[in-house]
């Protein structure tokens, strides 16, 4: 009997230990560094009836739960999420007003952009958004917090659909007494809508006047001075961006030197923005063949345009549309190569330097009017000055970025 008792006692001990091993593994996963609170993301309103071309606001909200080890609800300082929709039925409106710092706790838009996606019910596009607050902890909010205002435009007709929040790609962070800063997204609810009228979806906006906007522009290239005989015929890429983020790219545009302008070396061009039916609040991006891309948001811009969207207005009448003078903020040379030799990658970095240095050491020269990628100032030769120009661009660009 005593032996049987020992055996049972031993078995119980074994089972208890095995259980402890399993529990130890599990409990670690829910202790330190797990989420410090729960949060629910939602869109308001939850239902909406629309008419075609109606622009409507959708509010993004987060509701935080009680923080671990506290009786208070967690304070939120950042939200990153994807709000997704069917781009045959809806378009994104102006993203400039995502935050209103007088009514919202968040004060910084980390990024807002439109990206593709694949979701059920034909949802194929998302507004990718991240906002943060740099306010002191005491000023952060908890509970139900208004995160952002998103503007949508109904472009379909006689259809229904939904706007959803991609919970798996959402993050909510906040202030906590522990080292944990993330909240678990317990739920994410969207909205459903009905667009009245018509018999099917359409996403072809009607041009304002039946033709297309005309962009007349003046640009300049940094370091190019009068008499630089190879600074000619440089093709640029122009990208027009509408307030809703729609972009249209026009390659191989060749602005021509305007010698009537004598106080600077300016190049003039004209481009009809075919298939781009937008006229107001535009941004124009211009990239030279050896230059970084510049963003122009206003006429007569003289410095880096550090804002979302743009404020350029165009008309479809070439005779009356205002010439956009961008010469005050010249294109900066230095983007010569990327990982593939001689193919630009949109940046100035050590690769461009190395690429330029080899040619500068050889002191390559070409005849008047010819093209040499590493000739940054268009004076038909590559020499020490070009390396100095490169350094100037690198410093300026890094200063802009950081």
């Amino acid at each position, binding site marked *: 009997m005593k032996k049987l008792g020992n055996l049972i006692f031993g078995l119980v001990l074994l089972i208890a230990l095995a259980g402890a091993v399993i529990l130890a593994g599990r409990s670690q996963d829910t*202790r330190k560094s797990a989420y410090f609170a729960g949060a629910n993301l939602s869109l308001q309103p939850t239902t909406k009836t629309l008419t075609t071309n109606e622009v409507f606001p959708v509010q993004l909200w987060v509701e935080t739960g009680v923080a671990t080890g506290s009786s208070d609800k967690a304070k939120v300082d950042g939200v990153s999420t994807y709000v997704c929709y069917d781009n045959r039925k809806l378009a994104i409106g102006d993203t400039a007003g995502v935050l209103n710092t007088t009514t919202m706790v968040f004060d910084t838009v980390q990024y807002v952009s439109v990206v593709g996606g694949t979701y059920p019910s034909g949802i194929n596009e998302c507004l990718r958004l991240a906002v943060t607050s740099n306010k002191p902890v005491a000023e952060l909010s908890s509970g139900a917090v208004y995160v952002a205002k998103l503007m949508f435009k109904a472009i379909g007709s006689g259809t229904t659909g939904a706007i959803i929040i991609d919970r798996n790609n959402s993050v909510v*962070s906040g202030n906590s007494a522990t080292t944990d800063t993330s909240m678990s997204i317990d739920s994410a609810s969207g909205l459903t809508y009905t667009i009245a009228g018509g018999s099917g979806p359409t996403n072809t906006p009607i041009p304002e006047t039946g033709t297309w906007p005309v962009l007349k522009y003046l640009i300049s290239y940094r370091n190019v001075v009068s008499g630089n005989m190879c600074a000619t015929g440089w093709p640029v890429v122009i990208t027009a961006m509408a307030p809703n983020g729609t972009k249209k790219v026009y390659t191989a545009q060749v602005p021509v030197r305007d010698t009537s302008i004598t106080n600077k070396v300016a190049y003039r061009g004209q481009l009809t923005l075919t298939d781009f039916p937008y006229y107001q609040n535009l941004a124009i991006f211009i990239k030279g063949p050896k230059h970084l891309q510049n963003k122009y948001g206003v006429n007569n811009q003289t410095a880096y345009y550090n804002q979302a969207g743009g404020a350029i207005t165009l008309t479809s009448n070439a005779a009356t549309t205002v010439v956009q003078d961008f010469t005050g903020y010249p294109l900066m040379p230095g983007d010569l190569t990327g990982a593939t030799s001689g193919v630009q990658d949109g940046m100035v970095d050590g690769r461009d330097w*190395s*690429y330029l240095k080899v040619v500068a050491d050889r002191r390559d020269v070409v005849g008047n009017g010819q093209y040499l990628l590493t000739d940054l100032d268009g004076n038909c030769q590559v020499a020490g000055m070009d390396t100095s120009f490169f350094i100037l661009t*690198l410093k300026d660009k890094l200063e802009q970025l*950081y």
Partner: protein
Amino acid sequence: MKYIKVLIPIVAVLVIAESVVLLSNIAKRAKVTTDLPRTVLTPAKTPTVSTPVSEEVDFNVVFGTEQVQMQVGKLSKVQVNLLAKKTRSVDSLNLYVKYDPKVFNITNLIFDSRLPKPTFSKVSTAKGMIVVNYLVSETAGMKINEGDSLALIKFDATPKMVGDYSFEISSGNEANESATMFVENATVKALPYSGNKLTVNVIK
């Protein structure tokens, strides 16, 4: 009695197994803790530039130590070294160190005298990045021999709050900005490197 004799070693083995599970979980958890940023994470969809695996690298970019304890309000020295695994000539060295500006004040950047004067250096509190760009003017580039160790940067870090944080060698964001890069002379190739992380435990 016979059973007890059998049970004791089994129990001992189980205790050891439990200890191993516990310790490995604690280690795993500590790593996740340092990975959690103070603000918003980049969504999983965002592509990131991966750091090449260490077996294939030409350089290791490492902090002087992998783990350190600092005190709130007290200045601590941090150093980032380049250790050459192979002999290479470079035309440029671009270093980006990620840190949390809410947690640390970074001051007093110091550069190795064997390196050229940096073309650009800045502590960006807006981006949470320490940036140093060296460009080599010499035609043949700057030769770094296998086994060489260079201090790419030294700086002072003063923590502002208690907790576990990290400094990290940045391999670039989605726009490929802030990518630490070493470009080989003549080939214009970005040489493979590995970068580590400095885990900082800040106490009162």
